[in-house]
């Protein structure tokens, strides 16, 4: 026996009247729209990951470790990312050695030492704006300063950076992430409560003693998070490397130049190899190998990002 339609509609009306304003259809539609917008982004990211993984996994299955230990090659079955991994690692080492100390010490000065004057406001503003400069502009800076100016000596010979080398590339990436390191470190230092410093000054510690023994240790998790994130930014950058002359071609070897020699000769890096392969003709290159290399790059940046997030959550403090 089916209930007459009229009875159902009456029941619904009654229910609505009883519930009052609890159910607000407009609000529900709005909330659904919001959830949809979040899920759309999520969907795109999952689609992206699924695409590169399904296209790239074959390379790992067939080649296994060989993909990581082979050099560039015109023959897809032999092409690998060994040179790219070395290049990215070397670039990362330079960033760690150059950008991190400079960035953290700058932040320490700005937060702990700097007098409160117009000049320092300008310095802070300048750093914030540097963080927003497009990466390709840093590439131009690297080209003009590290490749050209420092890459040639007075006589027209090779200068201290050696021109289009890992050193030039690493310095360019260091300059690129420096403002980010300064900003994140500053935020971490600012989060250390003033009461802690005042307590130490009260018993006679000098500024450096307070900074070194109280402020820095307590700000360290935040600083570390920021530096890890900026490192992951650095290893994912492509545009600056194009401009400072990372290798763009299908084949090179460095022979027996030794590890130091590799710092001053032809080099490439993971994102640059992805760029190169993505523009090759055969689908072995522009789909499979590109996807496999992207899996590695995403793997590296995700590990760094997740490590940073975990680190922050683990040591996050509420003062």
């Amino acid at each position, binding site marked *: 026996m089916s209930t007459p339609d009229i009875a159902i509609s009456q029941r619904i009306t009654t229910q609505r009247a009883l519930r009052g*304003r609890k159910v607000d259809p407009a609000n529900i539609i*709005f909330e659904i729209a*919001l959830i*949809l*917008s*979040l899920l759309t*982004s999520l969907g795109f*990211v999952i689609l*992206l990951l699924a*695409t*590169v993984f399904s*296209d790239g996994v074959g390379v790992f299955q067939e080649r296994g470790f060989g993909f990581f230990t082979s050099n560039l090659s015109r023959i897809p079955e032999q092409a690998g990312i060994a040179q790219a991994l070395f290049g990215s690692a070397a670039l990362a080492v330079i960033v760690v050695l150059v950008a991190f100390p*400079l*960035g953290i*010490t*700058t932040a320490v*000065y700005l937060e702990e030492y700097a007098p409160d004057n117009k000049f320092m406001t300008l*310095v802070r503003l*300048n750093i914030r704006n*540097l963080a*927003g*400069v*497009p990466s*390709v*502009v840093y590439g*131009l*800076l690297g*080209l*003009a*300063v590290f490749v050209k100016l420092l890459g040639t000596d007075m006589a027209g010979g090779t200068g201290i950076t050696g021109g289009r080398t890992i050193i030039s590339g690493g310095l360019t990436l260091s300059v690129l992430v420096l403002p980010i390191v300064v900003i994140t470190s500053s935020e971490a230092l600012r989060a250390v409560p003033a009461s802690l410093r005042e307590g*130490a000054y009260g*018993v*006679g*510690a*000098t*500024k450096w*003693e307070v900074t070194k*023994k*109280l402020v820095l240790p307590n700000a360290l998790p935040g600083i570390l998070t920021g530096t890890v994130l900026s490192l992951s*930014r650095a290893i*994912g*950058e*492509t*545009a600056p490397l*194009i*401009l400072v*002359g990372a290798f*763009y071609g299908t084949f090179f070897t460095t022979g027996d130049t030794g590890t130091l020699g590799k710092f001053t000769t032809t080099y490439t890096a993971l*994102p640059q190899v*992805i*760029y190169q392969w*993505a523009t090759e003709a055969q689908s072995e290159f522009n789909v499979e190998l*590109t996807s496999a290399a992207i899996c590695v*790059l*995403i793997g590296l*940046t995700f590990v*760094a990002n997740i490590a940073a*997030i975990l680190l922050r959550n683990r040591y996050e*403090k509420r*003062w």
Partner: protein
Amino acid sequence: MGDMTSVIDAPSPSPLGEPAVDLRGNSRRRWRETRVKVVLLFSVGITLAISVAIIASLLGQSIDFINSIPLDNLWNFDQWAPRIGDFDIATLFVGSLLVTAIAMIIATPLGLGAAIYLSEYASPRVRRIFKPFLEVMAGIPSIVLGFFAIAWIGPEIVQKLFSDASAFSLAAAGIGVGLLVTPLVASVSEDALRAVPLSLREASYGLGARKLTTVTRIIFPAAISGVVAAMILGISRAIGETMIVTLAAGAYGEANFTTNPLDVGMTVTSGIATLASGTDQVAGGAGTAASSAYNSLFFLGLLLFIVTFLLNVVGESFVRRIRERY
């Protein structure tokens, strides 16, 4: 409480344990202070030097560039073909404009929607899951999104919607850039929404407003300067994005003037990257045509620097406004 003790325990006790009389008198300690200060100031100096270096390197070669070409060549809606001396920057400006507009059409609803949901609707648990997701999304390298744009967005979205379009187009690049900018828009606007004090919400509910009204009429207007900031910073990021456009927008080395987003095209950034990759432009040619092409890299860089700088300054001022208000 536990926190405090561990913090006080940690540093070595020497300065804290010394008698008060000694405190400022030790010249060795004061000397050390000076040394530290010098080292720190050196670092600050480097960050300033970088700005100077950027401006100096861009400006010098841009001036060379301007002097080396007839000026009516810069704005004639013809084409950008630096190798043969055609330097119509309108071609690249319109390209950048189209890509940025498409990117913001994608990123604004997605980013803003996610931000409102996370700050106003999501339970703390849902928030804890989705917030890191947005952060991870922000960490995807742009070259990866560029590959996604040619492998999927071009053929599966653009060509499905417009069968005449090329898989390589300004539209495909724009959608890719939109995905790149979404997490930035989301996180800046979410910060702004969360900065709106609880008291405003409570007052609204107290007056009997429903949730939808509270969110759209009270909270959103209150956070509007932060949302504007998110948009401006998003636009600045979209204008500066290079690799997605280089891979997906289609034109390379030279581009014809177009206002059609379904066309192949070029932006200011991809103009720089494509001229620099795979040619000896980076090495700097000797001939006149080649060297003005080389210098044009810096001219484009200068334009890019100025535009993004202005946008960032305006964007930051909006961010500060919301910080100061609450």
